[in-house]
């Protein structure tokens, strides 16, 4: 791993089938700790079956001292509940899927036509709401994670007394359970399962005149690339940059 990083993000953000095994998580945690890095386990939305798997993963993580308490990025209120009920030693971080932002690649083409208050709503995230933040803090959440969508972001996490992370350069756009990397065209059930693991080695692009940005799709999830970062990160309360070296 190249230098200059303070923390390792490990796990699966968008698909429970891609969630690493307990052994892989423990190994990654140990390696990160050995390199003096903090450790953040990223988790997706899950079904009840996925929740059982996550419980086992959390169990193994909670029992490992590592180089300090591990963080868990949650993208599912049920997972947040699980952490609160059973794994208070793991620090929950609200993931970007629950941050609630406008991320459509069409937005740059329409935002200027909005009235000022409407434009403002497109630049902010739902997670900034002070009442929501206060409630989440009761559940142990101190950090939230944002995308840098094409129109930019103008968050105010300081007012919400939360710390923020921003992901770059791939902004999440949408995700599905109807995974084209799984669908075999004949077996209808293959559309909602995972049989090929074809997501790991393939990224496709989707282009359309309706928007300038090209969508990048890996497995079940679509992104746009937005290189660079917004100005004033510190003013917004963002003190962490999550860098992705490939489409996640």
């Amino acid at each position: 791993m190249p230098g200059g990083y303070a923390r390792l993000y490990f796990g699966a953000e968008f698909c429970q089938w891609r969630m690493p095994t307990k052994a892989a998580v423990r190994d990654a945690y140990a390696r990160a700790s050995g390199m003096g890095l903090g450790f953040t386990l990223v988790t997706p939305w899950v079904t009840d079956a996925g929740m059982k798997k996550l419980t086992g993963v959390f169990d193994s993580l909670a029992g490992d001292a590592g180089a300090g308490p591990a963080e868990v990025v949650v993208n599912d209120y049920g997972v947040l509940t699980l952490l609160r009920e059973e794994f208070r030693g793991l620090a929950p971080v609200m993931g970007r899927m629950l941050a609630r932002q406008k991320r459509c690649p069409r937005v740059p083409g329409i935002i200027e036509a909005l009235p000022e208050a409407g434009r403002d709503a497109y630049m902010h995230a739902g997670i900034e709401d002070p009442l929501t933040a206060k409630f989440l803090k009761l559940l142990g959440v101190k950090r939230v994670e944002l995308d840098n969508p094409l129109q930019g972001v103008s968050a105010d996490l300081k007012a919400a007394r939360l710390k923020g992370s921003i992901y770059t350069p791939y902004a999440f756009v949408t995700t599905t359970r109807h995974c084209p990397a799984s669908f075999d065209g004949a077996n209808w059930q293959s559309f909602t399962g995972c049989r090929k693991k074809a997501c790991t080695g393939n990224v496709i692009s989707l282009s359309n005149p309706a928007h300038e940005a090209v969508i990048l799709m890996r497995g079940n999830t679509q992104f746009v690339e937005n290189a660079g970062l917004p100005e004033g990160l510190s003013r917004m309360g963002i003190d962490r940059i999550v860098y992705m070296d490939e489409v996640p």
Partner: protein
Amino acid sequence: MRILSPVDRRAEVGELADAGADELYGGYVSGDWRRKYSLLSSVNHRYFPSAQIGGLNELKGIVKDAHGRGLRFYITMNAPYYTGPQYEDILSDAARYIDMGVDAFIVADLGLVLRLAHIMPGFPVHLSTLGTVFNSKGAAFFSHLGVNRVVLPRELTVREMAGIIKANPGTEFDAFVMIGKCPNIEGFCSFTHNSPSLIWPCEEAYTFGTVKTDGRAEEIARAQAGWGSVNRRQACGLCAVRALDQAGVTALKVVGRGGPTAVKVKVVKAVRDMLDYSPGRAEVRLELQTKAKAVYKELFGRECSPYVCYFPEVWR
């Protein structure tokens, strides 16, 4: 099990009641909201005028007529999120809706759920599918905040729904059954539905390219391109209505705010027919499937497809 239908106009209420609807839902965006934020920052996740009830008097009329026919009416306030000043506006609207007699709010945003629990405790709140409840603990999370009913995401199987329902006996649950199947998870999707032609980003004809491949990228692109071969407004879960009933679903939800009245009516009638259909005990599943496929073909003039099948695990 009840049938929950969209409604956009007062004139539709009687027809939908006659067709077999038990409950109605619809949305309204005030003139003030449109001026301040525009319909592209809609209060209820529908961004085109035909999906909005035309005025407060129209809304009052819908509530009155619905109650007159013994139907409940729920109002949508289910934008994925709101920002600071929007909360004041929406809570003011909410108080007005209670005065009008609406029976529940359908909401998605956690901040709004918290405010309604505090300011209007006890008034029924339904969590929209945009609330993204995929498991039993997620449902319990919102139930503890005063949510009475959860609209389950389109992506869950009947078995997964049954597990959530069983684990949350004090909460009601809706399942989508007809029209409007999203290719993506609606609660996590940030595509903007702003096109005047009502073609959404997920429905566009894309040109596909390969960025990285182990040899399967073209096959994946073909599978994704399949969405272009179907009309997602012709989605169907009729095969599964019996299984959903057994799973404990409270209401079958028909999508289609802003759709033509005739489509709403014939779809509600088809769902009612399926609910009322009682084949003999032997080969129940096969008979239900045969009937559902026939009804689908009659409704839409084509065979069903995995892309627009709500419950592919039930289909044979």
